[in-house]
């Protein structure tokens, strides 16, 4: 059960991370987590640590890359940025997502009637 839930979350989280990096440019883990929470208007309350599983997964797939830098508040932090492959992947994933979301939305509307 728990496994299934995280599976769904996994793909979603990956997409959110990619999208965040695309929109905001290079960002550290905390920044990404905070941004996702803000956008979701705190609907999505995640353990911020879980973001790192997604970051590692995306790195291993070479969709994002990372390097150490300095944050606005002058703290050392690791910054993640989208690679070319990541940008391509985001495009595909987003399209997929929209298609699936569209289908599900229609389905829900249908059953409402």
């Amino acid at each position, binding site marked *: 059960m728990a496994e299934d839930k995280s599976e769904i979350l996994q793909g979603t989280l990956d997409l959110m991370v990619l999208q965040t990096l695309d929109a905001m440019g290079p960002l550290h883990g905390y920044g990404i987590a905070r941004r996702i929470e803000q956008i979701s208007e705190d609907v999505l309350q995640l*353990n911020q*640590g879980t973001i*790192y599983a997604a970051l*590692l997964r995306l790195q*291993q797939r070479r969709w994002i890359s990372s390097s150490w830098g300095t*944050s606005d508040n002058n*703290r050392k*932090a*690791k910054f993640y940025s989208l690679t070319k492959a990541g940008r391509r992947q985001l495009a595909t994933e987003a399209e997929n997502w929209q298609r699936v979301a569209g289908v599900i939305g229609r389905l829900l509307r249908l059953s409402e009637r």
Partner: protein
Amino acid sequence: MLTRLSVLASRISGAFNGRALDQDFDREVESHLAMMADDYRRRGMSEEEARRTARLRFGGPTQTREDQHDRRGLPLVETALQDVRYALRTLRRNPGFTFVVILTLAVGIGAVTSMFTVVRAVLLRPLPYTQPDRLIEISETNPLKGWTHTVAAPANVADWRARNTVFTDIAGYIGVDNRGASQMQRFLSVNGEPQPVNGIATTGNLFDVLGVRPLLGRTFTWSETFDGNDRVLVLSYGAWQSVFGGDPGIVGRAVVLSGRSMTVVGVMPRDFFFPNRSAQFWASMGVKPDVFVRMRRPHWLTTVARLRPGVSLVQARDQMTAIATELERAYPDTNTKMGVRLEPLHDIMAADARPTILMLFGAVAVLFLIVCANVASLQLGRGASRMREIAVRRALGAGRTRLVRQLLTEALLLSCLGAALGIALAAATPAILLRAAPSALPLFATPRIDFPVLLFAAALAIVAPVVFGLAPALSTSSVDRLAERAESGSRRTTVARDLLVVFEVGLSVVLVVGSVLLIRSLIHLQQVDPGFAPDRVVTFKVTLPRVKYPKDTDQVRVFADLERRLRNLPGVEAVGATSTLALRGYTWTGDASVEGRAADDYERELRHESVTPDYFAAMGTRLIAGRMLNEHDDARSNVTVVNEALARKYFPGKDAVGRRIKFGRPQDSDPWITIVGVVADAKQDGMDKPARPEVYVPFAANAQNPATFVVRSDVDATPMVAAARQAVRAIDRDLLLTEVTTLDGLVRDSMGDERFRTTLLSGFAGVALFLAVLGIYGVLAYFVSQRSRELGIRVALGARPRALFAMVVGQGMRPVAIGSAAGLAGAIALTGLMESLLFGVTPLDPITYASSIGVLAASALGACALPALRAARVDPLIAIREE
């Protein structure tokens, strides 16, 4: 796909950079928490609260870290690597233990691997021919003559070829002795300097039957089997290299082979041999075509045939038996009761060696089990002293599977190191074998470490730790609480180790009994009277080239001249010559009739030897009755000397001297020959084989070329041979001495196989015994060290040292007694298998069993004595204070 590859690549690199990446991630988490805490502080939280909330929102940094670690690398490989690292560290901390275990395993794995290289060379590696498993040797059988597999008569072979439909073809060859060694020694002249070479003479289709193409030139054609087309020669790769220096223009070159000029038509590939590596050339038989039409006697052709595709050996046997029956009907004169026997070529070539090799391989497998038991015992002993460590690790949360895996990794590491050393030992085998026992292996076999051998050794290295490591690992890892460690744990270990001692002792007894049986066989064999006096006698063969000495009378004259010259050499006591020397594996046999018997009652398989009068003196043959031959006995005198076996068989209970026999069947027109003397039986085929009826006819009456000279002297062999060589050269400087040896050497070589297997099996048994003793000692020493407190109390309470000594010895000997009993039962069951290897002892020889048990008991007592002494000398004060 690409994505998956990049994940794998990153995981592999992650596995190797684990520590650095962990640190990197720690810093990242730290910065994450710090930044979050900054935000919370900015919203007005206290320092303390900001930090706590940050940690809470992050959710278990440690868990995240471990999760991250696992996702980053290859967790399975990583724990394995960790196990290996840990094992290496543990082993390095106990160098003594590690050294003993690795050495023991190296001996075990090395010994099995060595024997496997031999098994592979002799029994498993395919012969270098096309589809070698389709090659069959056809031999003839005849119950009347006691033949179980004899070379064929050429006309019979010709009929087989014409009538069968089961073989693509049948080829024949001559010139090998009963070990398959080439007996056709010739001299190949290159630039006038003759070089001795061995070869065989074949029918023209031999290479086609074998299905082997030459490296250079061509092979023979069928018409080249016959006289007139026979001046053709095929060389082995070795002869081409050594005699002709690898001359690329060798094909078509004219050479001189023992006085005849021949043309080299082909060179065979480097890996090729037939029938074994002693053959350096293949010549045509050069017989008259008539031979293949008429000659159904004598038998001298060895055959090799190739089964037609789809034909089974059974079908071939059926048809060939039918053909033999047809021939028997058509030629009752020669073929009565003449049957055929078909066996795969490889089986025939390996037949003599197979029982010895399988026996030794079995022995070495037993040795391997003993090695594993020994190492298991050592592991258990060490496991007992590791109880505390294991218990602590369990208490800290190590799972049992994890611990077993850890301990097995350690065992695997040990066995891999042992195997590496063992393979190095095994790699030395071929050289040692060839030096120590050149005649022990069939001539076609060349043991070497190849890929299957390495695979075999690797399999052993993997199997061994399961055998010796699993039980100790399970027993050791089952320790649950610290409290359990000392008493019950050690008792369980002692029981397990006692069982291993029983096992080791039992297997050792089997090996010791086997080796004592062989040792006693060899002793019996060495005590056999060869029928001649072998000390201080050198022998050598001289071949007179027919081109130079065409007539029999020339040959007799030259040999007589040579005999005279040899006799005049300083120190020489007697000189004789013979056509066929004993123990050389080469004889002429024929039918014989005894005067006065019925026309259909005649003897088969009479052996002929032509000898000069002084031959008996030179050999040291004893006269039993009548007289020896003398210089007046020639072709016209029609006299012969016979051996005791003949006198017994042909004239049971009567005096043979003065009676007449004829070398042929009653209806043949051979002259009657008078027996003038009976001499003691000389061994002909081996020290373990009874002498067959044999006649010694005057050399002058039946001259033979080549002749083997026998020189008895009081001079050492080396100067004697040198002097003899000069004497030969003085007659004709082109003549060479071949097959130079001493009679002692000949007798010794005839027992080469026996000595080889006895030495090896005794060696294995010795190692087994040593390991068993080590096992007994180890268990008992451990027992004493564990009980030193108890022993001390006993001493304090007045126990006498002698009683303690007896108690410890009793403790140690109990498993030995049980093991010996089991071993004896095993030996009784197994030694029956080696009956064919024994001589003069039965597999159940009581002396053997008694002495084996004696040896084992003495060794075991020796092993018990040291710990028992230590027990008897325990100082109560020290012992009690120890805990």
